[in-house]
């Protein structure tokens, strides 16, 4: 015999064990022994009630099947916690609640016979129901499941009963499957109306949290109940609970899974939506989804306003009629979508724009002349088309994430939606559809999916041409953005063609120029600049500027046009720093109407570049950092604009001599651009070329050479041998060649680049640098006689272009002085 008071933890010997458990008994005796262990516990009596068995155990107490000896009636007796009667006030409260529940006379509500207090404990006597909890009824163990219709029919009865109670002012507040029993004839019975209210007030919360039991099952409680906001608990809490129960009946588990506890809940409910029921069970369809979604809406405003409404929708479903549960309002959807999909700000901003049916390109084509009523009409139609489209897209995409993909991005949703409308016949006129597709393409472009975007934009343009043929106004945004994308993909001839087509589509005259003309011209100017034809770009840009001043001096096109002019001046580095002055003026102008916006950021970036060229690195850094900051906050750090600004930072760092940092910055830029635009895109190669200059400065000649030779080959093919862009790769390449001893090739490149520069740029800082580098090269070769005149020319030009005190001027002066000393 083992004595429990035996101290010391000796392990039980086998003998002890056998003894205690009867291992050595013969079979029959042993079975007797076992029988004694396994028998049901003696239940005893509770007051007069003879307890027969325990029916269940729940948050409030235990329920027994009992017999009333006087009448022989079988009843259910629920023993409630004594805390319910802690004060006289609570006791009378309890009695009132029970009374209210007791008068709920409905065949499917379990009748309460009365309350008693026995030995200080409150008991509730109820009708005994021989049934099973409804979840077990709907999904009995084993493979069979009850048919959906049957479940819904019974559920409707439950709804009627709950609604009956609501109409009499009794909210259940604790509906769950164990509170709904179904008998052998498939009749449901609901228990415990109103008691939840008493319970939660009666029992001290310390005990609640400790035992856990008293809190009941969280899986069916509405969010506002869980938050403990008892004042905002109304009939819709029961709607939620019934929705959760129906969800479980149809899919087999509650909406958020079984293993739920209060802390999880507080987390989970605020962020997730349940898995679409139709995904969990093939018998269910999207109408059931809609009904359940509406019942389980996190925000009670979005739920059915009453059980009756829920029941009505279920009836409609059963009758084959359309269900009324429609997607919630789009404002709610947008909020929810953004909340759920935690995408970067860039995405949600773009999305908001899309929703507002505004295009994301420059404001140039924003509706200006109210006189154009056809255009105004089209704008209105487009807006509604886009809203509709977006709503459908949102409905499809949210709240259910795509399988296997937790965070659906706007881009994915757009892409999926765009694919869907590919082949469809939309009912909109071609002009509106063009705008719609354009909006999609534009958003995708902003998000970085340029290749998909360009396909969709071309389609938009095709539709626009059809519209124009029918006399409708053209979709100018389509042209503009398409040209922009073509430019970015380095297809300059195509961009020029698109823009010229757009200009032709304006059908305006020199006497009466269209307000859209300056903008298109500005774009054309930019493309020319890209092609290396700076004179043409300056000419076009100045014309655009003049026109825009004439047409509408205060419109936003002014800013962009200015920038084109400036940009055409930059390579020229006009001596009076006209470029920088203009840039500052523009910055101030923008600051006047939209400080901190994207235009402002771009202008900062632009100015930073000019300031850097001038040599004021500190200021350049300041300006640039502010631009980066704005871009990061609005477009996200992965947007092309931000990347460009970071490139500029890299240039600044190199100028400051911080080579390591410059290197790491530029490598990041290369990675982004390579991913976004491809390895052979001009922007990517430009970044690589800059990396090569950094590597050169660090002494890594081989690596620099590799990059530059490849870039040169690419640009020669792409731009031609005598193009300024090609020459700009020759520039950095030549000194590297010289450093590794390939001096013949180096000299060739120096001279060739210089020739092109003289031709294209004339007397400018860049040309002067080229001259200086040639001079320095000759000096390093020991060809002092040749070097001297070259350097002298460099000095003259630099003095004139840069100024006496510029570091470049000083640099050339020093080089000349070293010759003088050498000759002395």
């Amino acid at each position, binding site marked *: *015999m*083992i*004595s*429990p*008071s*035996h*101290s*010391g*933890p000796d*392990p*039980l010997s086998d003998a002890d*064990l056998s003894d*205690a*458990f009867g*291992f050595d008994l013969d*079979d029959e005796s*042993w*079975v007797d022994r*076992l*029988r*004694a*262990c*396994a028998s049901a*516990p*003696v*239940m*005893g*009596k*509770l007051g007069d009630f003879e*307890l027969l068995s325990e029916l269940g155990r729940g948050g409030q107490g*235990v329920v027994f099947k009992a017999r009333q000896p006087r009448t022989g009636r079988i009843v259910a007796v629920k*023993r409630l*916690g*004594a*805390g319910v009667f802690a004060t006289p006030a609570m006791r009378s409260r309890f009695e009132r609640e029970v009374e209210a529940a007791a008068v709920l006379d409905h065949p499917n509500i379990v009748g309460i016979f009365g309350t008693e207090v*026995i*030995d*200080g*404990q409150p008991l509730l006597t109820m009708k005994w129901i021989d049934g099973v909890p409804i979840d077990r009824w709907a999904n009995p163990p084993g493979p069979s499941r009850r048919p959906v219709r049957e479940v819904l029919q019974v559920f409707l009865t439950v709804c009627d009963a709950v609604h009956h109670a609501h109409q009499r002012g009794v909210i259940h507040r604790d509906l769950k499957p164990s509170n709904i029993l179904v008998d052998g004839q498939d009749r449901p019975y609901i228990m415990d109306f109103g008691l939840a209210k008493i319970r939660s007030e009666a029992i*001290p919360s310390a*005990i609640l949290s*400790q*035992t*856990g*039991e008293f809190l009941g099952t969280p899986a069916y409680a509405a969010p506002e109940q869980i938050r403990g906001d008892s004042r905002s608990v109304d009939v819709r809490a029961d709607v939620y609970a019934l929705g959760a129960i129906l969800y479980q009946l149809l899919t087999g588990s509650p909406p958020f899974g*079984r*293993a739920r*506890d*209060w*802390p999880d809940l507080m987390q989970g409910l605020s962020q997730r939506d349940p898995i679409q029921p139709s995904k969990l069970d093939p018998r269910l369809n999207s109408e059931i989804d809609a009904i359940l979604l509406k019942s389980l809406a996190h925000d009670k405003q979005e739920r059915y306003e009453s059980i009756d409404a829920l029941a009505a929708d279920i009836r409609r479903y059963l009758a084959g009629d359309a269900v009324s549960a429609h997607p919630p309002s789009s404002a709610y959807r947008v909020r929810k979508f953004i909340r759920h999909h935690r995408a970067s700000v860039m995405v949600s901003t773009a999305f908001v724009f899309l929703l507002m049916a505004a295009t994301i390109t420059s404001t140039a084509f924003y509706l200006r002349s109210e006189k154009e009523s056809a255009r105004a009409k089209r704008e209105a139609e487009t807006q509604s088309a886009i809203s509709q489209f977006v709503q459908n897209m949102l409905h499809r995409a949210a709240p259910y994430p795509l399988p296997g993909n937790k965070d659906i991005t706007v881009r994915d949703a757009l892409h999926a939606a765009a694919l869907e409308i590919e082949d469809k016949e939309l009912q909109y006129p071609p002009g509106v559809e063009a705008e719609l597709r354009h909006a999609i393409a534009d958003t995708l472009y902003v998000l970085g999916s340029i290749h998909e975007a360009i396909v969709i934009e071309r389609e938009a343009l095709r539709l626009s041409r059809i519209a124009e043929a029918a006399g409708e106004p053209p979709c100018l945004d389509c042209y503009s953005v398409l040209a922009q994308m073509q430019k970015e993909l380095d297809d300059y001839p195509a961009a020029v063609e698109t823009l010229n087509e757009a200009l032709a589509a304006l059908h305006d005259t020199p006497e009466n120029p269209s307000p859209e003309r300056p903008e298109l011209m500005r774009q054309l100017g930019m493309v020319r600049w890209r092609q290396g034809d700076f004179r043409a770009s300056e000419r076009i840009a100045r014309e655009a500027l003049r026109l825009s001043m004439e047409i509408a001096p205060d419109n936003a096109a002014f800013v962009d046009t200015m920038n084109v002019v400036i940009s055409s001046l930059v390579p020229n580095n006009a001596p009076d720093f006209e470029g920088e002055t203009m840039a500052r003026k523009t910055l101030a102008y923008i600051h006047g109407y939209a400080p901190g916006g994207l235009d402002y950021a771009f202008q900062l970036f632009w100015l930073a570049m000019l300031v850097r060229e001038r040599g004021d690195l500190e200021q350049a850094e300041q300006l640039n950092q502010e631009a980066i900051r704005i871009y990061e906050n609005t477009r996200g750090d992965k947007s092309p604009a931000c990347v460009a600004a970071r490139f500029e930072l890299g240039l600044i760092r190199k100028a400051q001599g911080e080579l390591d940092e410059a290197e790491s910055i530029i490598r990041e830029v290369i990675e982004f651009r390579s991913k976004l635009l491809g390895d052979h895109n001009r922007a990517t190669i430009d970044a690589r070329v800059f990396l090569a200059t950094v590597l050169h400065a660090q002494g890594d000649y081989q690596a620099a050479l590799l990059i530059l030779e490849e870039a040169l080959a690419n640009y020669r093919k792409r731009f031609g041998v005598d193009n300024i862009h090609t020459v700009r790769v020759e520039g950095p390449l030549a000194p590297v060649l010289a450093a590794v001893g390939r001096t013949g090739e180096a000299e060739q490149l120096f001279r060739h680049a210089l020739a092109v520069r003289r031709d294209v740029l004339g007397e400018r800082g860049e040309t002067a640098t080229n001259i200086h580098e040639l001079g320095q090269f000759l000096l390093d070769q020991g060809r002092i006689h040749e070097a001297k005149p070259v350097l002298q020319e460099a000095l003259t030009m630099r003095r004139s272009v840069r100024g006496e005190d510029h570091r470049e001027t000083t640099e050339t002066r020093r080089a000349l002085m070293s010759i003088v000393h050498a000759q002395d």
Partner: protein
Amino acid sequence: MFLLYCPKLFGHGKLGIFWVRSLVDLSNTKSHATTNVALLSRVRNSEDHAAWREFQDRYRELLLRFCRKRGLQHADAEDVVQSLFINLTKALPQFVYDPQRGRFRDYLYRCTKSAISRWSRRSIGPFQALDTDREHLQPDPVDRAQDAADAAVWEQEWVAHHYRLALERVRADFDARNVEMFERNLSGESIAALATAYGVNEQSIYKARQRIRARLQELVAEQVREEDRVDDQPVP
């Protein structure tokens, strides 16, 4: 690891401490939703409500039956067990180990006894005075005879508890028909009647029963050893 703390039960101010490793290896048990290993170490974490519920489900019957046999009405037994569980939730997370103190079942026995004592001395209501720190729980010295009787009852119930647990687990180890036959035999049907009902010969039923018995005994032994295991390592 699972640590128990049973303060003030030994008459002096020192804290009594235990180490118990996972009380029952539940890996064979079929229907529990929670992971089955080391239930008691999970219960030590007061946030793990699922483990806690499981712990209560597991031990409730043992405790109830003991209380009933000690003469309490069912309703009172319910109250005592309830307050005992509440106590344990507070006490469990802070346990430290002392190998001198004995086994988990001894500890549980002592806690149950003290819960009953408390209840019998209650002045206000069953949910009052749960703060164990403020209590002096001296076993009444004169009640040694009662003690011995209680100990015997406790052991009986403890054995029954283990068999009940093992019965639940054994179902997973045999095919449903054999289990059914065994259970029917257990509830009183004779082997002969079962042989007729299932259309098999009695010998095969005896044999099946023997195999189930052997398995049950194995399970029980395993359960008890698990319960008694002592571990040196401190709780992380």
